[in-house]
């Protein structure tokens, strides 16, 4: 049953991801990406991590992507038909991209990863609660990355203000 659900959402995710790259209209691309995010969330549910799943939908589909859509609509670019300089490179790009793809499939396609089980098995999560597990880890083992991320976000906010705020003329100083 859960395998069936997995394949269903895996297929949706892969197709939507392809659509995101292939579709010409940026809004369609963004929507495909939203679909990818939602199917990923479904997979997190299958992995008994509903907290991560909901956070995934809320943050990626609900916040980040909406901002993408906002920017796309604000700038309303036409459908991308390829600019002159890029057109000349298209053949080469396809060639090298396909070569890399073939290489990766050839090398990684046959690889079977070891079926290791980590600390957080479904039973462990059921006993502790997945939200509690995420919270506890964030403030113990992953405290440093957690704090650094907050500094990173601060820097990002400062940077956005620097880049986006109305220009002041230098002579005023």
């Amino acid at each position, binding site marked *: 049953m859960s395998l069936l659900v997995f394949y269903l959402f895996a297929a949706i995710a892969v197709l939507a991801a392809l659509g995101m790259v292939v579709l010409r209209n940026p809004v369609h691309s963004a929507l495909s990406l939203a679909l990818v995010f939602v199917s990923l969330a479904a997979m997190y549910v299958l992995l008994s991590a509903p907290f991560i799943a909901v956070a995934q939908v809320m943050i990626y589909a609900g916040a980040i992507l909406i901002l993408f859509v906002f920017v796309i609509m604000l700038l309303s670019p036409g459908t991308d038909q390829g600019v002159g300089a890029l057109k000349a490179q298209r053949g080469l790009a396809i060639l090298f991209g396909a070569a890399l793809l073939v290489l*990766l499939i050839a*090398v*990684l396609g*046959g*690889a*079977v*990863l*070891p079926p*290791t089980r*980590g600390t957080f098995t479904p039973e462990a999560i059921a006993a502790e609660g997945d939200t509690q597990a995420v919270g506890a880890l964030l403030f*113990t*083992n*992953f*405290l*440093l*990355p957690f704090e*650094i*991320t907050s*500094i*990173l976000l*601060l*820097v*990002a906010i*400062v*940077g956005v*203000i*620097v*880049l986006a705020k109305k*220009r*002041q003329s*230098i002579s*005023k*100083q």
Partner: protein
Amino acid sequence: MLISPELILAIFGMLVLVVDLIGRARTREWLPWVTVLGFVLAFAATLYIWGSNASIFAGMYSVDMFSLFFKLLATIAGTMIVLVSIDYLRGRTTRQGEFFSIFTFSILAMTMMASSASLLMIYLSIEFLSYTSYLLTGFLREDKKSNEAALKYFLYGAITSAVMLYGLSLLYGVSGSLNLTDIATAFANTVDPSVRTVALVAPALVLAGLGFKISLVPFHQWAPDAYEGAPTPVTAFLSVGPKAVGFAILLRVALTTLPIYQASWIPLLAVISIITMTLGNLVALRQTNIKRLLAYSSIAQAGYMLIGLVGVNLTGNSPFSGLNGVLIYLFAYLFTNLGAFICVIAIENATGAVNIADYAGLVRRAPFVAALFIIFFLSLAGIPPTAGFIGKFFVFGAALREGFLTLAAIGVINSIISVFYYFAVIRAAFFLDAKDPSPIRITPLVTAMLTVTAAMVLLIAVYPQPLFNLAAWSMGMFGVVK
């Protein structure tokens, strides 16, 4: 307090913002000095915890001598770049507070990259440094070139970081751990052919992200445009900072996680090293803009440094372990390249010129700068008696010791090619007549920084023993490879 340098940098990064926010115009004059104070304190804190060898935050963060070496490097680079950017920024931007704050955070990111011992921290700190670098590159909003540079840098960085993340996820998938040493153990204990296959491919993908930071060919295309458009002190930073800590992570991953696959990654790195040196040097020959020239020069320099990793061999007591060559090279390169860029800044501050043609007759207009150009370019080309020679001596020596004769030979040939374009600048400065012979006024601060860097370049060459010791200490924590 093993993370005191990081704490100090984080606090000062925010302090600068606060001072900028609540301070008056006169207080804001002190912002660069507050920043410098932060760097000096972080430098002192690094010295205070000198000799520690600890793994903290559940093994995510390694405070060892290797990381402390790079923290020293980061704070030194930070101090010098802040000092030369004071005059440069005046009149170019009104947002000095944000500039110095973001710059402090970028030094923080460098110190964290040096200590990262888990895939998560590696990715996070690389992204941290990338974001601050993009912001600094595009900081001059009024300047179209600065915008263009930031955009190209950002797009290129986003792609390589995605590729790197894919590689990191594969590494995590095959080993079940984020910790570099745990991954090494998992690799050593497995006979599963699938794991071994993935363990060969995944690091190659990770190399895309690191190669972007280090500017290795073929991940170098952003460098000339970003270097040309960025504010010149930022260019100086980009040419030494991300490159140095990129090497820190490359060395750490190669020597702690992947030593058992050394036979596989050495040919790959050797090839990358050769094309990086050759392409960098050949394209540099055709450049007319000094910042682009130094960009290609710094790409080529990354190629030389990589020779040290190719020739790495930590067994025995040979003075040419390869690793020490990379560290010595990085240290020498820090002062040399910063010095060269400070010369460029000195001229740009006074005249706004960044083309080599504008350097005609420089010897009459600014004899001090012209003379120092010679020292820095000699050092970049690796000609004694300069620091660059010591660096090249040790990386080429390691390659010879390991029997990579062709690689060493190509390195030497490339050094000779590089002499041509370095001396094209010197020829303009010394043997061509200036269109405008008026003398160029160099501010005292820039003069002081020029003196310091030039003195260091010469000092390392005539009295290199302390640097040798520093490199030897710093690599002590790596196990025997081979």
